[in-house]
């Protein structure tokens, strides 16, 4: 998997990226997302209502081995991941809503994750690593706040930070997508097709159902895109941490498989959806005449 040095490097990259994302925001953006908590509530419902259900249905219908099924369920019960914010930014979604949704689902996760897993995997005694949850929140919120402050101090410093943050985000996504395959070649060769299917489709179904749900409730396309990405993109590293803490040796390797596969494929899935969302956004943009006069 990923070594501690790489993990620290990735965390540092995420920090800088989120600094840039934060510099694109103002307190007012958060205020508006909070003033209409409708989108936020929809997010929590699709995060802890739909995703675990999708995981459960796939676990049952695909006839997955028990350990794989358990891994799938754990990933599907995770809160939204930080990368959802990056993809929301690029798909011209509502970044403030995305950040709030990630924070909400992460905080709620402390009791919702055990509860949902209890429902679907019946009384599993899981250990939820609080440190990990706090670290997720810190690495998300601290740079966002600093970014907003930078923008407040100087619009130019903010815009430059945002520019470098978004460039780094593209490098980061490309790096994850490209470097993952050779590093996990052996693992990829020994994994069952049904496991692949489950790991890939969890994200795809999550995004599609999140989008459909949001559209059904007549959210603005900008917010629907946000809910979709937030629903489909899970905090997979948290799942991996939970599994490592909870399960011993041999068993651990099988349970972790879905989480690991998911981490890689979700980057590609989200990239594809982001490109589609961007195209839809451009198409829906108001056409202004070439010159205004």
């Amino acid at each position, binding site marked *: 998997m990923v070594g501690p040095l790489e993990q620290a490097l990735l965390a540092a990259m995420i920090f800088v990226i989120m600094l840039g994302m934060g510099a694109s925001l*103002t307190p*007012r953006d958060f205020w*508006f997302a909070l003033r209409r908590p409708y989108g936020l509530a929809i997010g929590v419902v699709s995060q802890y209502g739909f995703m675990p259900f999708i995981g459960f249905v796939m676990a049952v219908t695909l006839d997955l081995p028990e350990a794989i099924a358990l891994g799938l369920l754990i990933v599907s019960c995770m809160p939204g991941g930080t990368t959802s914010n990056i993809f929301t930014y690029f798909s011209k979604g509502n970044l403030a809503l995305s950040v709030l949704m990630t924070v909400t689902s992460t905080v709620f996760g402390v009791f919702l994750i055990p509860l949902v897993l209890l429902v679907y995997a019946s009384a599993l005694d899981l250990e939820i690593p609080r440190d990990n949850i706090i670290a997720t929140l810190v690495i998300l919120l601290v740079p966002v706040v600093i970014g907003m402050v930078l*923008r407040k101090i100087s*619009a*130019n410093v*903010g*815009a*430059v930070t*945002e*520019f470098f943050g978004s460039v780094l985000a593209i490098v980061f996504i490309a790096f994850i997508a490209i470097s993952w395959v050779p590093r996990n070649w052996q693992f990829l060769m020994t994994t069952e097709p049904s496991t692949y299917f489950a790991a890939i489709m969890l994200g795809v179904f999550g995004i599609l159902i999140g989008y459909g749900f949001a559209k059904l409730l007549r959210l*603005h396309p*900008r917010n629907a895109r946000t809910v979709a990405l937030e629903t489909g993109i899970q905090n997979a590293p948290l799942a991996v941490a939970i599994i490592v803490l909870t399960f011993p040796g041999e068993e651990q390797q099988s349970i972790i498989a879905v989480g690991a596969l998911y981490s890689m494929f979700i980057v590609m899935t989200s990239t594809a959806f982001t490109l589609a969302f961007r195209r839809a956004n451009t198409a829906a*943009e*108001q056409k*202004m*005449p*070439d*010159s*205004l*006069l």
Partner: protein
Amino acid sequence: MTENDRPWVAFYGPDIRAEIETAAYRTLGDLIRSVADTYGSAPAFTACMPNGMNGTLSFAQVDELSDAFAVYLREVAGLQKGDRVAVQMPNGLSFPVAAFGILKAGCVLVNVNPLYTAEEMARQFQDAEPHALVIVDMFADKIAEATRGHPIPNIIVTRVAEFLPSLPRGIIGLVQKHWDRSVKPIEVPHIRFSQAIRAGRAHRDRDRIEVALYDKDVAPDDIACLQYTGGTTGVAKGAMLTHANLILNMEQTLEMIPALERGKEVGLTALPLYHIFAFTVNLLGLYRLGARNILIPSPRPLTNLKRAFENYKITWMSGVNTLFNGLSREIWFLDSPPKHLKLASAGGMALQVAVATRWQEITGKPLLQGYGLTETSPVLSFNPVGKTRDGSIGVPVPSTRMACVDDNGIPVAQGERGEIAAKGPQVMKGYWQRPDATEEVLKGGWFLTGDIGVMDADGYFYIVDRKKDMVVVSGFNVYPNEVEDCLSQHPGILESAVIGVPNESTGEAVKAFVVPKDPGLSVEDIRSHCKAHLTAYKVPRLVEFRDTLPKSNVGKILRKDLRAQESQDQASE
């Protein structure tokens, strides 16, 4: 033609003077220097890019930089008083520096639409014969073709991000060069704007040049701008606008908006400054007020304005119907409409009542419509604050007379339709090198606008249509706008255009071109809808369904193209 009564003066209120006899400044150069002395280090212009990157010049900096550019034009490029200098660039910090420098040098500013094709540029250059061209690098690839056979001796190239701090400027430059590829190599000999300013500065310091002497012998009625108009309807003509025209029109317009306070305002300029409305009202007016002017290089897509609204406390903005209508549909604008806005001013094209109403609902502040033409510098009328009338272009601005006249130039009875004629210190000197065209529109000191209008009992004016679009059916005047308005109320119609076509029995007949929204729409549906709302002679005799209608690059439906197609069809039959 006689001078009408001025019933509208009663609606000016205590803050608006009825007459502004003399300009407070002799030349625009005087104005620029004097205002800079007053406001010094306060921010005058801020260019705000779509991503929020920005640069600011203070009043003192714009004054100094434009001085240096004036010296460059006179001493290095060797230009003389009255020589034309073309400026072709989107809104940015280079615009005020270049425009002010040209005026201070005693030269004539020729604004050129940056979106012009090389062919359109060539026509304008051949007519204006500029001695220098200040152009942004994004459009510089058109120079070679546009100046073939008529070379412009001095080409000065600037960039969108000129005068921004170096890091944002560098990033924008790299993105333009390698990402959008919007900046192409320039094939003609040229000098960079920044080099020109350095050269001018060096000359000034070495020879101790007193820049104010350049326009000392410029008279108030000397030409300041050649402003081209009529490009979409025929051969473009250059309206000769004098220093007094522009200074007084700026004063007349500011007089109509007494809510704007000196040294306290932040204005948003989303309209291109090459256009006379933005030039007089935004560039000159905001500067004169000591306001901070936020310049938007391109308002397309409208999200490009988001950062400007977020980062600056906009108190006033100007725009056209399309802009206000568009903003009223942007979710980010609806979420947080500008809190500090006092009012907004609309010009350039007719402001729809629905758009004005919606704007007022969203922002809680009025959207005031004005009216004018390039030939009148441009403002002739404006709605006074708090006394607006729906659909009206307002009342004449101070020192301005307006009247509706018949074909003989005789004022029609109040409430009757007639061509709007106007008289005031803002009326142009004439068309550049076109005495024939000038004679057609300037008669006995009155300027004939070509717009058919009507005045109510209080002196508020309403536009009915363009005179040349009028259809005469059996001696009755039909105004296409009226018929199109009626058609637009039919739910099955997306858009429509109405013209007159020759008819044996009625002289002309009304013909409607309709783009249906509902595929089941029939000619009978349309005619019966019109019959219910219009007098019989106004009902379209002919209806043709179309998938699209010809439009200008500004989105105006081109009736003249439909007329041309129609006469071609008739000829071929």
